[in-house]
């Protein structure tokens, strides 16, 4: 999809993506001529539909990994990360994890998953990640 600033007759450029954590998505687009910004807000179903295509609004910041969809979206799975009984990841936690460099992301994900599993936490959220980071001394992850 593309956004047009009608007044300037200019195509607007993608500016920012936000995942508030409630299943919705916010993406902002800016007119390069007048600077006007508009936000596209999608509901959980619309967000999931885009996500189910394996694409990211705003573009991919990191390359895809093997079985990414299976690991992140199959609720009854968890085997793809080599573990059993893995907790699920909230969408905003996934977003934060996607910013971790690829070469250490698997290790970082396993650390958080182990932390959650050992404490019986079913879903990893940014708050859980913050707690784990503080408890385990993982500043920067």
């Amino acid at each position, binding site marked *: *999809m*593309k*956004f*047009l600033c*009608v007044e300037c*007759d200019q*195509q*607007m*450029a*993608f500016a920012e993506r936000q995942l508030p954590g409630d*299943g919705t998505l916010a*993406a902002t*687009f800016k007119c390069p001529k007048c600077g006007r910004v508009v936000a596209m807000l999608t509901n*959980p*179903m619309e967000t*999931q*539909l885009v*996500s*189910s*295509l*394996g*694409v*990211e*609004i*705003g*573009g*991919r910041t990191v390359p*895809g*990994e*093997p*079985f*990414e*969809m*299976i*690991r*992140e*979206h*199959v*609720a*009854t*799975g*968890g*085997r*793809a*990360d*080599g573990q*059993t*009984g893995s907790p*699920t990841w909230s969408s905003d936690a996934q977003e934060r994890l996607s910013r971790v460099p690829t070469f250490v992301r*698997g290790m970082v994900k396993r650390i958080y998953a182990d932390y959650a599993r050992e404490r019986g936490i079913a879903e990893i959220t940014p708050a859980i990640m913050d707690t784990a980071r503080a408890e385990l001394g993982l500043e920067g992850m």
Partner: protein
Amino acid sequence: MRTYHQLTDRDGSGLAEQIGAQRRRVAERLAGVSRFVAVMSGKGGVGKSYVTANLGRALARSGKAVGVLDADLNGPTIPALLGDADARRTTHENPAPAVGLDGVTYISMGQFLEGGAPLAFTGPATESFVWRGAMEASVVRELLGDVEWGKLDVLLLDLPPGMQRYVELCDLLGTPPAVLTVTIPTPESRDAVRRAMRSAADRGSALLGIVENMVGGELKGSAADELAAEFAVPVLARIPWHPSSSEWDRLGRQISDARHTTHDARP
């Protein structure tokens, strides 16, 4: 006001480029595969997976390098049929297929589901029908395009009932796979399989022939002969309730020898 195609800059998210990158990844992973054969039927419960597994083993015994994609995400049975001792080999850090009986390699959703759990996705429960189909197609794409298949003489595609997965695979592969059709003798099966064969022929798949399964028991009819005459294809095998390995070996030889030309018989 200008319209979509009049705006010449990319869409900012590069969605088309992202989809293109997914397709290229699939093509790269499958570059070493010589032939694709979809084992399909318009009917459930006719033994597609059973035929797939035993055909794969027969081809492997004849010296072929064989892989199987279990494309039945909701009812995966290939690990059970080809042996699941090695099923847990596959992880995201080791995207290698499992090695089953007679050296047939395979990938199946069954390797990723815990203890017989049904396939379920995270996401909003309401209106999940809107996105579930796309999610399943993406999972199939990953099973095809993320697995290190290596060099294969043939990759067998074990399809679920219906035509949706076949259509998805046509899109993912870029060209329609050759099709081996499985039926049971009954008229009900014949009618369902006819629709599937017609759809596959319309898409441009080569129809290799028909395997009639569960022959010689209580099931009455002549579905295979009628479909063979209608589509001008051979009945490659009639599988009794208790087949011997020689029957599978004979089917394997016929599939090895089959020519992959686009089917042009339009009944």
